[in-house]
């Protein structure tokens, strides 16, 4: 019975933490509840997120607010075409030691933070973009032949603008695949716009309080991985991923017609981990089919590459995945 009490307590704490995060963020950010939930899920799963939306929708504000309430170190990198990798990772600089000798000392770049906001990531050159690859995958940075470990929790939140594509460098597929979620920032509704106006055009500024620290986040990460998932539910996730492959078992017609490359195994990992996190945050001890379904779009949307025919016909990955969800049965 003690074990059960402990598990129940964990779930309650995780749920409570999430509720607090949502409440606190909502003081600074209007709307975007689903986006905030997905960001939190990515955080407790140890993943990185790519936020895509037109300018002025509050992408940066959301990320900055999240950094504040989590009591985690936060840094922002504004990606520009002239940004160099060393500007992100840091570099060895020549300094004097206490004895007056000249030595090289590693000067940490902005990547050395718990939460890194890579603003307008697609404006930097591929060389600079790839500077983030090692940090995102290995959670370490190698400068001058020496690897520097990044602190946990480490999370990259990159933003990109789908318009004004002139002078931008689309992210390479390898880097896109390393993002746990790709989240689309939607335009606010009428009511939300009114509240935004109230919140941002008056003298009252929202000061956010800290609700979670790094240890809490790491603890929740451990709990997430302990959530049991039935083989039948796992099989459903596997079939969903396979359905995005043109030659996969149970691939749907739209997939066969418009997809060039399907999701990688990282897509499956994202689905299952995110579903586990979602069930934990819902205070449920097991993963449901609905958990899997709810994370398919953010988890697989950026991992499928459409062909030119899809571009020509205006087919989006979301549309393909919607059909995949409709066609793949939960239980065979």
């Amino acid at each position, binding site marked *: 019975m003690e074990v059960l009490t402990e*598990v129940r307590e964990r779930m309650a704490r995780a749920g409570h933490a999430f509720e607090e995060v949502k409440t606190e963020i909502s003081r600074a950010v209007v709307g975007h509840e689903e986006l905030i939930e997905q960001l939190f899920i990515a955080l407790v799963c140890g993943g990185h997120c790519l936020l895509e939306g037109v300018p002025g929708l509050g992408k940066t504000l959301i990320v900055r607010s999240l950094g504040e309430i989590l009591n985690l170190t936060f840094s922002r990198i504004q990606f520009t075409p002239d940004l160099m990798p060393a500007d992100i990772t840091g570099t060895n600089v020549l300094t004097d030691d206490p004895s007056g000798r000249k030595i090289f000392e590693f000067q940490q770049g902005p990547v050395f933070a718990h939460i890194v906001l890579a603003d307008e990531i697609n404006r930097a050159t591929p060389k600079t973009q790839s500077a983030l690859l090692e940090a995102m995958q290995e959670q370490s940075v190698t400068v001058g032949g020496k690897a520097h470990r990044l602190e946990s929790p480490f999370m990259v939140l990159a933003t990109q603008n789908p318009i004004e594509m002139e002078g931008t460098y689309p992210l390479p597929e390898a880097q896109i695949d390393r993002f746990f979620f790709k989240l689309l920032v939607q335009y606010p509704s009428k009511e939300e716009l009114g509240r935004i106006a109230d919140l941002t055009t008056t003298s009252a500024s929202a000061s956010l309080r800290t609700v979670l620290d790094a240890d809490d986040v790491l603890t929740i990460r451990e709990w997430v991985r*302990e959530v*049991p998932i*039935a*083989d039948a539910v796992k099989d459903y996730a596997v079939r969903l991923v396979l359905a995005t492959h043109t030659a996969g078992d149970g691939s749907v017609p739209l997939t066969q017609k418009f997809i060039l490359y399907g999701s990688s195994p990282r897509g499956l990992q994202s689905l299952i981990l995110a579903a586990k996190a979602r069930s934990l945050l819902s205070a*449920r*001890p*097991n993963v449901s089919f609905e958990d899997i379904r709810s994370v398919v779009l953010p988890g697989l949307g950026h991992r499928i590459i459409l062909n030119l025919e899809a571009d020509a016909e205006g087919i989006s990955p979301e549309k393909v995945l919607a059909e995949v969800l409709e066609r793949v049965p939960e*239980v*065979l």
Partner: protein
Amino acid sequence: MSDERLILQERFSELLRWERLKRREGIMVTVLFYSLLLSVSVLPANALLAPWAGAFYFPPLFFLILAPGFFLRRPWGRRESLRALFLLDKTLRLEERAITAWEILGCKEAKGAEQLVIQEAGERLRGIDPRALFKREYSWHAILTPPLFLVWLLLVWLDMGVHLEKGVPGSQSISVAQRLKEFSRDLQERAKSQGLNESLKIAHALEELAEQNLKGEGSEKKLSGELAGIFNRIEDTAPVKEGESELTLPSTTREGLVDFKVELETLKPALLPGSAGAENKLEPEIRRRLATLPRLKEEIERSRLSIEKLEGKELHGLLERLEQGVIAELDRRTLLEIKEFLALLLEGIGGKEGREALQAQLQAAQVWLSETEKAKGKGSLPGDRPGTKGEFSQTPPPFKAGAATQLKGLLGEGKGSSLTWRGEAQGRESQISQEEILASYRRQAEEDLASERIPEGLKETIKRYFLSLGLTESKRGE
């Protein structure tokens, strides 16, 4: 083991057992539906099947054939169990707690979060009754099966099968009537030519009945009844019973009887009142002719009379008696043939089995006929030496086989075979007497006279001609 584990295991077993039962029932109903559908489909081909394959055997037969296939195609496995649990989760909004708990129960040990899943699933499933929760649902197979069964039953009752001999319902009686008419015509001709009164009456009755049915006035059932009536009537009106005749006629074949009748008729003109033979004392010519008629000679000897001492009146009386006996015997045999024919017709009306029996009878009759022909050597032709024909075994065949061979118009064209012998003719005396040859000609003439080929007006003239052949020849000889 905790209470929740026990409760869950019990509930899951109960649920899966119930779902399995429902599925089995569903498959059975599906198989039954398709069995009935196939039975209805093959019903028109009923007549093409073997006699034992009645319409009532179709559904169980198809059921036995299809059921193993259906059960093997859809065996109960893990997938089916998962489906049942998935349905349970959906119905009770358990958010996959049942499926997860079921899988965890299959493991030896449950960790912290897994124990919580079992606990929560156990709490929610504690009071459920799978039978009440998942009631039987009737598929479209189950809904359509009872009406389909009724349709099948109705079709079987109406005997909607397309039989080979009948294109439309009721045509069987017409077909039988046609046969009957054909048979009665032949019978009438034969009876008229041979003077068979009782057979002629029956032939008239049969023709009348056939005409009625051909006009569509009678039904199959009525026809059957009428035929049965005639059948009984024949039994009552038989002119002479088998063995009652004082002659050796019952052991003689029909051909033998006809030959004998011809012999009698050949001799009769010579004994007509006013002729020389009608006197008390027989002329030598008549005595000589008597000696050349083997069958008649035999009967005279059987009557313990002597040809040399025989007087005209005695001979005349004997001939009258013998002729009446022959006619009565022919009449009796003809009636027996009619009876056999009617029996076969009645069987034919009775259904497929009757038709099979008819075919068998006809085949047996053909076999018997060919064997009889072989046994007799030359069939209706004279024997190879004078006076020996009667010594052959001429016992009438068993009734079943023999009578069917006489059913003219029913047999149709059979297979024929012939063998031509070619060789040099050897000049020697004929082994067959002239009287024998004349008798065979007369008999053939009788057969031809009985047919429709010869106009009625000429029949008597032709008959007289052939009867006079022997006399003319003997006069020439003198």
